[in-house]
């Protein structure tokens, strides 16, 4: 599988001269689901936000499908095939579901057909088109957020903790849904706190600690790694390598 997204020596942070990420490297392969895990404050969400252009990058490169998109503006992502699903506030609550979808479908030449495809993929949304998005359950909100991200047929999706705040059952369903999306050819970079569930659905895993790469490998190997088990089951503090 070829790489669709490459992160090379990335340094980024919210305040100038105070990087949270230090020399982070990452490769996302075509059609794969790669998860980023790590303790609180490791820089997982910051990494995904830096790729999406929300957090300023001070060094390094972000390469999407062979094109350098370092420091891209978030509103320029969609035409390049990059979609971002924020952790919270990823839908527009006072708009109806149809209006949420219309926002992202607007510029597509085949928007009517694409809307039908999305509603066929996510039937619960089709039943509630005229409802305010704020009235949806947690799982359905994530479904809508994913549908909105998928609308423009991205090649890469960045997802920031889609299971946050959901019950274990719904969280598992959302992650299964995330997994199933790779069958459509989209590559997914997933940040998760729910380590076991994330490793269950992922192909590859990167562990960040204190803003640096700590470990990476196939998800099933990481899951059986004694150090990872110690960190997440034994509560040991992870330092930078």
């Amino acid at each position, binding site marked *: 599988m070829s790489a669709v997204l490459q992160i090379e020596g990335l340094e980024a942070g919210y305040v100038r001269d105070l990087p949270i990420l230090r020399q982070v490297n990452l490769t996302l392969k075509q059609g794969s689901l790669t998860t980023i895990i790590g303790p609180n404050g490791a820089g997982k969400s910051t990494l995904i936000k830096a790729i999406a252009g929300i957090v300023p990058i001070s060094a390094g490169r972000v390469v999407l499908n062979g094109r350098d998109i370092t420091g891209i503006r*978030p509103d320029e992502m969609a035409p390049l095939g990059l979609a971002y699903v924020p952790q919270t506030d990823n839908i*527009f609550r*006072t708009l109806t579901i149809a*209006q949420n979808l219309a*926002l*992202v479908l607007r510029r597509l030449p085949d928007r*009517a057909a694409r809307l039908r495809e999305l509603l066929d993929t996510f039937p619960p949304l089709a039943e509630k088109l005229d409802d*305010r998005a704020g009235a949806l359950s947690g799982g359905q909100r994530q479904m809508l957020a994913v549908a909105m991200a998928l609308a423009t047929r991205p090649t890469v999706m960045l997802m920031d903790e889609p299971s946050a705040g959901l019950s274990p059952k719904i969280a598992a369903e959302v992650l299964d849904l995330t997994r199933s999306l790779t069958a459509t050819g989209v590559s997914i970079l997933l940040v998760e706190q729910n380590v076991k569930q994330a490793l269950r659905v992922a192909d590859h895993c990167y562990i960040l600690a204190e803003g640096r790469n700590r470990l990476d490998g196939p998800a099933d190997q990481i899951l059986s790694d004694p150090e990872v088990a110690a960190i997440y089951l034994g509560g040991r503090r992870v330092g930078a390598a």
Partner: protein
Amino acid sequence: MIGLISYLAFFATMAGILAIAVLGLNLQWGHTGLFNGGVVAFFGAGAYGTMLLGGPPEPGQFGGFALPYVVALGGGILIAGVVAWIVGLLTLRLRHDYLAIATFGVAVAFENVTRNADWLTGGARGLRGFPRPLEAAIGDTFLYGLFFLGLVLAVLLAVYLGLERLVNSPYGRVLRAIREDEVSARSVGKNPTRLRLESFVIGSMIMGAAGGLYVSFYAFVSPQDLAPILTFQIWAMLIVGGAGNNRGAILGAFLIWGAWTLSGFALSRFAPDAMQLYTGSIQYILIGVVIVGMLMWRPQGLLPERVTKTIYQKGAKKGSVIINKEVI
């Protein structure tokens, strides 16, 4: 009877002018989430702009170009838009309360300029002598009052219909999306920076139109007309009527202006002599109480924002998915 009708026409004219300004604020706050604390500056830019362009020449005074009324009013609206564009470029990266403070500062600065730049604004004595549109042709004061009311209501209707079209269009959807969450709006390919500025300028031009009509009605403008209370009155109108609902904005304008007028009348008639000096202050307190009370007990206003319904047809024909009566 004529006196009563004349007074009601006067009341409705002022309420209509203020309703136009409230509609401008509703676009900014109700639909885009821009906390404009300096409404009076844009109202004033339209007022002074119209007066400078349409008023008669006076020695030692800038302006007085005596342009035709429609050109003067259009120019006043344009000046309000230019002021809003400059203010917007400087302040719109601020959020919520910070934007409110910055724009409130702009309004205070604007009032100070009008008070001190004698060569431009006439200073504290203001600008006067504006030829009211068609006044000479109509002649009769009573009939002219009714004519001007008709003019104001026509402008109000045009602004209302234009805004309804705007906010129910895809453009309006994007504005509401930005109001909710800019990061999410960016992540779905929208450019909030540009759209916030556009909404701010359009809303301020509508406030400028209200200011232009105000100055046409009174044929006079001074810094007294741009006191900060006007900003709070217009905010109270929107909060009471219902932010995000254009009908609510108009309803709020008429209700609050009615309450303001009635309270002024009641206080001047029934307050003890020793209190008469303070009746204005009591009215200010009443406006504050109304704003706080509504925010506590009915924050959505009397006419809350409506959910626009979608017509969804799962037909095979191309373009059969219709949202807001528009094929998406």
